[in-house]
């Protein structure tokens, strides 16, 4: 196989032009495998068509399409050594194809609730040519205007709609994301084979197919932060020639991350802290006394474990070097922390209340369970899903719990002198903390869902190192192990999709479903929002359900409030309800009568807090439409499903 052939020619002015010829051989299996991935995407799109027609084979067809995309690339990357160009091409093409997998489910408009929140912020900035316009459906969003600014620039210059601009932006971001992931992993591992496998493993994270493909601020901030990490890691052993460029790039990327997404900024600085703090601590702890104590302590449990610890002791003691302890990331970490502090203090102070309330709720539930004041059943409701997805989801978590410690040990063995790799090993232990919270809090699933993209930056690397050593076994059982590893990757990938968002009931497009987030967005509620935009004063206060809350807040340009379920679900309308209307200044009530047809698939009609008390019967239609017969209430709009009530008379 020939590699690139640099051919230097001298032109007439004495300038060297290096022709880098990428010969046909360099492509390896890239194009044939890309054709197979394209075929997989085609099968996925067929499954979407079948799902819209409610054909029974849509669901298995979808999974078949996903696996046709994933398995050939996994086999290729785990097989014979693949050259760097082909490796990059394969992971980038697969990453992009998985983005199209999400996009083509709903190729004509936004459907996810968080996307509507971002749409509103982008719309407001386009309408006013200004920033920080209050967003009634996500208060904190305007104070992180990175994505809005990029959208504003693209829409202003091209004239595209916000949705089309979003497709362009997230598509470009996905390309940059895949390249940055590969380059980051390659920089840490110094091997393109490890980097390729780690990037493939990253695609198994439950947030990859959905969360990082949506038009949400995380989809921009996360890839930027990975590019920043690549620059920072490369900076720690850069030559003078590239040092300026890397520092300059990092200094542009860090503020962009800070002003684009709060959680990503925190995760980014968390990773920098990890890279800056772990090496010196590791070096100080890495004394004969500590290891001797650990080896003695483990001897009480098992002699074998003790011998294993003694082996690790031998290896870990070898990693002492000045460079290990001082990788020069302290100042960047400090700079990022100061940047976040300034941004939150002077611009986005609402971040603390927005994130703080969620953190306190989770902490209270965890403490409640640990102290026995709460039962686990009261905070954790297992999601209802098909058996096959249950097995894949649980199986992937079990495999992670088993494989990550193995990968950690292998990483310590192989990269014992590398401060970043050792830091990633330490950070990988966060998996166990995150999983504990998942099962100890009703918001744990949401928290873990948000944590996966950051946690997997560490896990993917550690797992890749662990897998690779197994893959290069020379004995007769090499092939069974290889097949087992492919199986491992398949379970991890399918489990990631099963555990991630969107859940099975909204993964494929189709007819309207009650309380099903993306599957609840249809022509009727979009028509209602369009009507509201044209006929009701902008930012009128409305009470409605979770789905319409987002659609009316975005396309309707209204100011809906959440948490008003008693106005709709209670049998009568008394003083309590009247006070509620007046306290929040509610001008309109919007009812989707289809809520009476079935239980909500997400578990709630009005908000996720309903999940802890699962419903046993659908909403009562008489309660929903009780305002028909009420004094001082006008029924002003009806499209057969959605009804608007004007309750402004009640405010007098």
């Amino acid at each position, binding site marked *: 196989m020939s590699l690139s052939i640099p051919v230097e020619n001298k*032109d007439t002015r004495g*300038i*060297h*032009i*290096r022709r*880098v010829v990428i010969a046909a051989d360099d*492509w390896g299996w890239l*194009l044939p495998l890309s*054709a197979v991935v*394209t075929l997989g*995407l085609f099968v996925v*799109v067929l499954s979407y*068509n079948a799902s819209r*027609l409610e054909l029974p084979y849509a669901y298995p067809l979808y999974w078949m399409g996903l696996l046709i995309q994933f398995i050939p690339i996994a086999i290729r990357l785990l097989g014979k050594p693949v050259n760097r160009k082909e490796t990059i091409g394969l992971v980038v093409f697969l990453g992009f194809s998985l983005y199209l997998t999400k996009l083509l489910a709903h*190729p*004509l408009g936004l459907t996810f609730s968080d996307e509507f929140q971002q749409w509103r912020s982008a719309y407001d900035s386009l309408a006013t*040519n*200004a*920033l920080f316009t209050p967003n009634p459906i996500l208060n904190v969003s305007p104070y992180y205007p*990175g*994505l809005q*600014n*990029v959208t504003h*620039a*693209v829409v*202003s*210059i*091209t*004239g*595209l709609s916000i949705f089309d601009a979003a497709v*362009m932006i997230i598509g*470009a*971001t996905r*390309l*940059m994301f895949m*390249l940055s992931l590969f*380059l980051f992993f390659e920089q840490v591992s110094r091997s393109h084979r490890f980097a390729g496998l780690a990037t493939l493993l990253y695609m198994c994270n439950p947030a990859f197919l959905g969360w990082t493909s949506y038009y949400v601020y995380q989809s921009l901030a996360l890839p*930027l932060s990975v*590019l920043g990490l690549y620059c920072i890691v490369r900076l720690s052993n850069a030559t003078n*020639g*590239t040092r300026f*460029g890397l520092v300059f790039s990092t200094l542009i*990327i860090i503020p*962009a991350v800070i*002003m684009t997404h709060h959680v990503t900024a925190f995760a980014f600085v968390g990773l920098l802290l990890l890279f800056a703090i772990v090496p010196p601590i590791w070096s100080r702890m890495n004394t004969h006394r500590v290891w001797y104590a650990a080896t003695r302590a483990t001897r009480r449990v098992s002699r074998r474990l003790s011998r294993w610890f003694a082996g690790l002791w031998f290896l870990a003691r070898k990693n002492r070097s000045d460079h290990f302890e001082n990788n020069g990331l302290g100042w960047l970490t400090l700079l990022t922390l100061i940047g976040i502090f300034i941004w939150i203090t002077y611009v986005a102070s609402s971040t603390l209340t927005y994130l703080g309330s969620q953190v306190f709720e989770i902490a209270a539930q965890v403490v409640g369970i640990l102290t026995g004041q709460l039962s686990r059943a009261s905070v954790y409701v297992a999601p209802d899903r098909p058996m096959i997805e249950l097995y894949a989801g649980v199986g992937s978590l079990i495999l992670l719990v088993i494989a990550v410690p193995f990968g950690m040990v292998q990483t310590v063995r192989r990269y014992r002198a590398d401060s970043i790799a050792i830091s990633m090993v330490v950070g990988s232990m966060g998996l166990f903390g995150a999983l504990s919270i998942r099962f100890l809090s009703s918001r744990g699933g949401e928290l873990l869902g948000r944590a996966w993209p950051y946690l997997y930056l560490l896990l993917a690397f550690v797992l890749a190192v662990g897998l690779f050593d197994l893959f290069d076994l020379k004995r007769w059982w090499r092939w069974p192990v290889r097949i087992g590893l492919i199986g491992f990757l398949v379970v991890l990938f399918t489990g990631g999709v099963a555990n991630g968002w969107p859940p099975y009931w909204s993964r494929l*497009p189709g*007819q309207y479903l009650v309380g099903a987030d993306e599957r609840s967005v*249809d022509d009727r509620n979009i*028509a*209602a929002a369009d*009507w509201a935009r044209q006929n009701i004063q902008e930012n009128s206060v409305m009470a409605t359900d979770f789905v319409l809350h987002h659609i009316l807040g975005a396309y309707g340009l209204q100011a809906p409030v959440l948490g008003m379920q008693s106005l709709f679900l209670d049998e009568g309308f008394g003083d309590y309800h009247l006070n509620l209307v007046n306290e929040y200044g509610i001008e309109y009530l919007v009812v989707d009568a289809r809520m009476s047809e079935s239980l909500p698939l997400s578990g709630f009609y009005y908000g996720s807090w309903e999940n802890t008390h699962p419903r046993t019967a659908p909403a009562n239609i008489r309660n929903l439409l009780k305002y028909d017969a009420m004094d001082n*209430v*006008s*029924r*002003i*709009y*009806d*499209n*057969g499903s959605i009804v*608007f009530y004007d309750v402004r008379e009640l405010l007098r």
Partner: protein
Amino acid sequence: MIRRNLDLILLALLTIFVMVNALAQWNLGPVTDVLGSAFVLFTPGYLIALMIFPEESLEFPVRVALSIGLSLALAAIGGILLYASGAGLANTSWIALIAGINIVGSLVVLIKRGRPDQAIVERYVIELGWTMGGLLLLIVAGLTGIILMARQSAYDRPSEGFTELWIANVDQSEDQIQIGIHNQEHQTASYDVVLRINGRYIEDWPEIELDSTQQWVTEYHLPPPISRKEIVVVSLYQTDKPNELYRRVQLQRDLVGQ
């Protein structure tokens, strides 16, 4: 000279196209979409990367990642700068900002490339055989076809038609109302509209025929009130089902003090 700086020449042409396009307000459809997006999402980062890195250290994947990443970061930060500067986030401000970066960047890179120690420029030449070239074309055509198919399928999705009916006071007046119908049945439909006050027949609009997506809106002056509280009800019937109420809206008129 031209061969060496082909990338800068292309970027200059792109910048000029975007500026002229904005001034002349052309609508060239996908050409504007693609070139305009590249102008925002690729060019500033590409030039900044060329400015701050030695060119030989920018291998192809790093160059692409930095070009997109730095462009996105610059647009994110640029919006704040434009807003803070008072220029606002208008179309012209964005073009001035990005074109400014492109012009300054191109000049710096041009000067840098003139220096003898920076005189190595990489040119990528991709050699594909007929088979691989054909396969590449097949993949591109396949992806385009898949995207078009998915969009068409989403357009043609089976969905139940519906009709919107609404009522509103005109200019806050209690006497003048607006009644509207919007046909979203995916076919031509015929409607009868009946207006009643406190159950009393007032007016009707028979056989209103609307094409798919067509609207019918009328304003009506209500008769003087005869009671303190009146309920104005508008009922919508499909012409072929005159006895089956299809939609209903109502307004309450509280006439205390009038």
